[in-house]
């Protein structure tokens, strides 16, 4: 293999690869990226056996071929090369070395045979559709904060993507929860997605997917089977196993009878919560909300370190209410609101509270209160 490739292009492809490989792993080849040069492009393939990313980048291919090399080391090298450099990668196929040359810099890297690289088995996808990047971005960005890290509830360690029945018809829906908060985000159902099986997309895949969605308005090809999901742009293909488990019936968790409504400027609210929470050093700080006639008092009382209180103007017309929440959870859901006011719907101090943006039903959040 002998190729020349522009440094920026190479950095992007190798960057994607090195974030997929596991930092600490016992199988050496899993730390490597497989490079395959043919025609006028090179494909970079990396896997952790659960996720596989293939990035195809334009290059000048003098001699076709393939080899594997440490993704992290190659990334570090390319990152440190000057912008605009032309990088030459040469592997003679026999020495077990890859020569990397850019300007006056020269590197020799150990390679492992391409035959040993595990390529993810292809599978039959039941559903193939395409969705605009911004739509997928919204679905995952707004739900991922609620993904659980609890190992015993492995079926919550991802975002449940499925087709659901909403008031205005069938939608593409993403749900994530850790038992303390829940996010339910809907989008118009893309053509061809009707028969999509519901799948739990693992946390790491959601993180990797985000990098694919950076380009603004691109259409993303999505393929789904019972065991795998694939997202593809013309250059990059991300294939991932999905979590083998049953996502719990979340619909009974979302309160429908909450009538006590508070409307507040989400940003002002988030800032105030952040300020009062400062006095407590506990990991799970509790913020108390006292509501009375268009007035909200936020307070934190940490016996060891101090107390804080702040008053906010809100729209609230129901009877007095005192309710506590984990400050971090409140901040996270308040920061999901980007256009209108945050609308909170309470029941009692012990019942789940619902939050949405204005009257928009397509993004709904539920948060469990805390005893204060």
């Amino acid at each position, binding site marked *: 293999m002998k190729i020349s490739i522009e440094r920026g292009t190479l950095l992007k492809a190798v960057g994607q690869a090195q974030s997929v490989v596991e930092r*600490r792993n016992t199988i050496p080849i899993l730390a490597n990226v497989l490079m395959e040069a043919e025609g006028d492009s090179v494909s970079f393939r990396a896997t952790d056996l659960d996720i596989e990313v293939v990035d195809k980048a334009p290059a000048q291919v003098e001699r076709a071929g393939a080899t594997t090399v440490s993704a992290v080391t190659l990334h570090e090298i390319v990152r440190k090369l000057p912008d605009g450099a032309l990088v030459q990668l040469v592997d003679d196929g026999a020495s077990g070395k890859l020569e990397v040359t850019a300007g006056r810099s020269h590197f020799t890297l150990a390679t492992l045979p391409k035959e040993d690289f595990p390529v993810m088995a292809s599978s039959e996808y039941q559903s193939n559709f395409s969705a605009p990047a911004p739509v997928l971005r919204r679905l995952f960005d707004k739900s991922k904060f609620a993904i*659980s*890290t*609890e*190992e*015993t*509830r492995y079926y*919550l360690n991802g975002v449940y993507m499925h087709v659901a029945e909403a008031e205005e018809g069938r939608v593409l829906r993403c749900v994530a*929860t*850790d*038992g*303390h*908060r*829940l996010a339910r985000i809907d989008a118009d159902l893309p053509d061809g997605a009707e028969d999509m099986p519901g799948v739990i997309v693992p946390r790491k895949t959601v993180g990797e997917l985000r990098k694919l969605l950076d380009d603004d308005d691109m259409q993303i090809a999505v393929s789904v089977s019972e065991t795998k999901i694939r997202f593809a742009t013309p250059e990059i293909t991300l294939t991932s196993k999905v979590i083998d488990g049953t996502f*719990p019936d979340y619909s009974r*968790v979302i309160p429908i009878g909450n009538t006590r409504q508070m409307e507040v400027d989400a940003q002002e609210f988030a800032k105030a919560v952040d300020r009062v929470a400062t006095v407590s050093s*506990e*990991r*799970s*700080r*509790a913020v108390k909300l006292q509501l009375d006639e268009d007035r909200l008092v936020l307070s934190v009382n940490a*016996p060891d370190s101090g107390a804080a209180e702040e008053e906010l103007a809100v729209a609230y017309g129901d009877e007095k209410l005192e309710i*506590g929440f*984990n400050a971090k959870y409140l901040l996270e859901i308040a920061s999901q609101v980007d256009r209108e006011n945050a609308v909170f719907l309470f029941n009692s101090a*012990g019942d*789940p509270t619902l939050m949405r943006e204005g009257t928009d039903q397509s993004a709904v959040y*539920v948060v*469990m*209160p*805390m*005893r*204060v």
Partner: protein
Amino acid sequence: MPALCRDCLTRFETGRRCPACRSPRIVAHPELDSLSIAHMDCDAFYASVEKRDNPELRDKPVIIGGGKRGVVSTACYIARIKGVRSAMPMFQALKLCPEAVVLKGRMETYVEVSRQVRAMMEELTPSIEPLSLDEAFLDLTGTARLHGQPPAVMLARLTRRMKAELGITGSIGLSHNKFLAKVASDLDKPHGFAVIGRAETEAFLAPKPVRLIWGIGPAAQESLEAAGIRTFADLKRWEKDQLIARFGAMGDRLYHLARGEDRRRVTRDAPVKSISNETTFGEDTADPDILDGHIWRLAEKVSDRAKAKGQAGRVVTLKLKRANHRLLTRQSRLPDATQMADRIYRTARELFEIVGPEGPYRLLGVGISQLTGAEAADRAGDLLDPHALQRAQAERATDAIRERFGPDAIVKGRSLR
């Protein structure tokens, strides 16, 4: 070279015997007056206490431990000559030393003697870190002017007093950090005094096997050996980042220990990092009902201790030991800390479901770690488990009843399994 007589505490410069009392029990070292980190380890502590209280036992091999499935907790030096070691299964110990006197142990007495030793150590320095009833680290840095004697003298006086007043002996390791002090206390046992100075640290360690490091068990030893590391000299050939890449967080510690460096301080009453309980079964079992009963009772014990201390943990650990002594531990991190028996039980139970079916087991343990104060614990309900709050309320009510009428006033049916 500064030398000290361990019998009459006379200090002198040269000679193989004490110039004052002619005792051969001397300790001499160029750095004797400048080292101040010590490890004191009582010799065969439980057995020594038994022999002290019952002189008939003095010349007999004595083993403390017990139960049909028990292991040796302490063996006296006579039994050790026969090959008996602590943590050895009792049947094996009795095979090696059938004439041994086996005692069940009197924990209250040991605790009392340990308290007396502690009081003597308190007179030397406030900086004491007990590791168990019978060993502790002492930091005597800066005490020379207070006592008018260097640490070595005060330590020799300590073991002399222990022998005279309490009738037990201890061994001292004196060095410039905790790791080496602990290594040293083992060099001259029993009733010993060993010194490892700064100058000879690296030469002393180089040929020693890495299992000398506290925390390097058979498994870690195996992975070190796979990397070609058997001795400290092997270890020293590795770069720091190589060690970290290969062994993770332990790598950094290994790098420094290879050079005889240990920056841990002697900390008084080191904060508790976890609360756990375990039980070894009378007979190995794979019966899920029996195991479930054990998980519950252990979860309840852990919960009781956490509640008593006002602590809660974010991580729940389940520990299982197979019949072949292979240990299995699984952890789960909760979104918030807990001290409730119900949550500890349910989490441990789910971990058991994941690993469980492949019994039989001989030991089961349940624990919590990443401890925090109780104020922040168990205050949020669980969306997916709507009855969790009710169960928590029931548990608090149960606690209140037990508080008033005793621990057996109300128990879960599950605990009777």
